[in-house]
């Protein structure tokens, strides 16, 4: 069954006050404009509109979260440049509304869905997750989102759907970093279907209770807390169900350095650097380095997914 959604979503004509305050959006846009003018003065990243959500303590770590300025000012988002501070400076070019997501592949429901349709009926929750970058730094982030499983279930994947693949927007006008072929654009990522359906796997739309800043992957990004950060694909425009393992951007770029699984694993080093420990961003001087935990501390919940697998081979 194919579902076609009209191109002009009702929300484009009538703003949904509950989810989006137009005034806040406008203020945000103005602040973004101002921050690009005041770049030298290091204006803090603009705050998005507030979201309504419930805190999910069960899925939250007790560690203190990083500051908003750190999470929204220190980003690997090569679509906006390869320096950590370039996304926060250039991501204002991205237009996260209107936005649609194409669903295809081995599922009963397919088609192009407006973001508002995707978010309709989902209940947003805040989860404070550890975030471990493959570069051996880490943060603690209060994401706002919903389990990916609830979204995927709506598309009714068939028995042939063994993997889910995700694609980032490709538009060098909005994403100036794509003019340089640092990676194969558009960025692509993928999960095994059981990883995608795991309750910890989160579709993120917000940060610190507000709409996700562009540089963190607005309007829709993936977070898989037991995997290295690059698995958390940003600004998603396509979700596909496949029977074979999808190609993923970093794996294509350097297959010996970045695997498909990319589970956080202190035992398996990156060929060029150690993964045994990490530095927590924002921690005090001389007290920032800490041991890296297997599966980023989520082993109890996810180790079972990889039973019997050689994690050195499937890194």
């Amino acid at each position, binding site marked *: 069954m194919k579902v076609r959604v009209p191109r002009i979503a009702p929300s484009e004509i009538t703003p949904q006050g509950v989810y989006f305050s137009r005034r806040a959006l406008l203020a945000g846009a103005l602040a973004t404009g101002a921050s690009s003018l005041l770049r030298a003065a290091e204006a803090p990243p603009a705050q998005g509109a507030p979201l309504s959500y419930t805190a999910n303590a069960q899925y939250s770590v007790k560690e203190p979260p990083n500051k908003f300025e750190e999470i929204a000012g220190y980003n690997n988002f090569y679509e906006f440049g390869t320096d950590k501070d370039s996304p926060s400076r250039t991501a204002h070019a991205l237009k996260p509304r209107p936005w649609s997501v194409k669903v295809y592949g081995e599922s009963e429901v397919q088609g192009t869905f407006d973001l508002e349709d995707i978010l309709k009926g989902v209940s947003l929750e805040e989860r404070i997750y550890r975030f471990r970058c493959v570069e051996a730094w880490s943060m603690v982030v209060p994401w706002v989102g919903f389990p990916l499983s609830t979204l995927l279930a709506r598309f009714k994947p068939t028995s042939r759907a063994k993997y889910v693949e995700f694609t980032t927007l490709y538009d060098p006008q909005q994403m100036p970093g794509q003019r340089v072929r640092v990676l194969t654009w558009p960025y692509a990522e993928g999960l095994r279907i059981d990883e995608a359906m795991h309750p910890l796997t989160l579709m993120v739309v917000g940060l610190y209770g507000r709409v996700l800043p562009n540089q963190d992957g607005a309007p829709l990004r993936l977070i898989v807390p037991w995997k290295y950060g690059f698995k958390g694909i940003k600004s998603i425009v396509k979700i596909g169900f496949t029977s074979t393992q999808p190609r993923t951007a970093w794996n294509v770029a350097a297959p010996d350095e970045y695997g498909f699984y990319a589970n956080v694993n202190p035992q398996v080093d990156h060929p*060029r650097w*150690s993964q045994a420990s990490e*530095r927590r961003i924002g921690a005090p*001087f*001389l007290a*920032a380095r800490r041991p890296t935990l297997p599966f980023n501390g989520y082993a109890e919940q996810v180790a079972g997914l990889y039973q019997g697998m050689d994690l050195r081979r499937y890194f």
Partner: protein
Amino acid sequence: MTLTQRYRFIYKPLVFAACLLPLAWLACGAFGWFGASLGADPVKELEHECGKTALNLLLLTLAVTPVRELSARPQLLRLRRMLGLFAFFYVLLHFTIYLVLDLELNFATLGADIAKRPYITIGFTALLLLIPLAVTSTNAMMRRLGRRWQALHRLVYVIAILGVWHFYWQVKRDIREPLIYAGILGVLLGYRIVRARMRQRSAAPAGARAVAARAAELTSTSQAVARPRPLGAANNPQ
């Protein structure tokens, strides 16, 4: 004012101050002076900026010879030692930040990194190789070592290659910046190879010399390159 006085009282203090500017800028960032900031990961910023400043100064040091020869300003040599020593200073800072702020004095990790991580192995090698050059940079050491001084200080070519390689190897994906460094280093080292060849040729028998002279006529730069360098200038900065 004589040339020596100008160098002593004007140019050298100016270069000294300029070499301290990157450190001053990092200090502003670290302490938040003048609204400067090192960003969300100040340790990495300090580490990388000191490393890059060391590389910049190393390349500047290597640029002294071509510039003084091509511009016919042999006196520029008087600045080279200071540039080289500042390169060493920033390499030491880079290493200290890595050991103290990044590894937090975990010597076991330091040992493992040096042994197992090729980019750290070559970076550390470059640091070790710089030590004898810094130690023998004084006038007294130059006199004592005589001709061997120059042979020893040719190590700087190896050090520069290791340094750029160290930079290239630790970059995750965007290799444009290390490639720029490699390109500049290639030009600086290539200049020396070309110059050595030209000299060899001009020292060759008359027939070959005529060919070399003809070649030198054809391009103005090769004329400049072929200009005989004042002997002993390299070992005698004063």
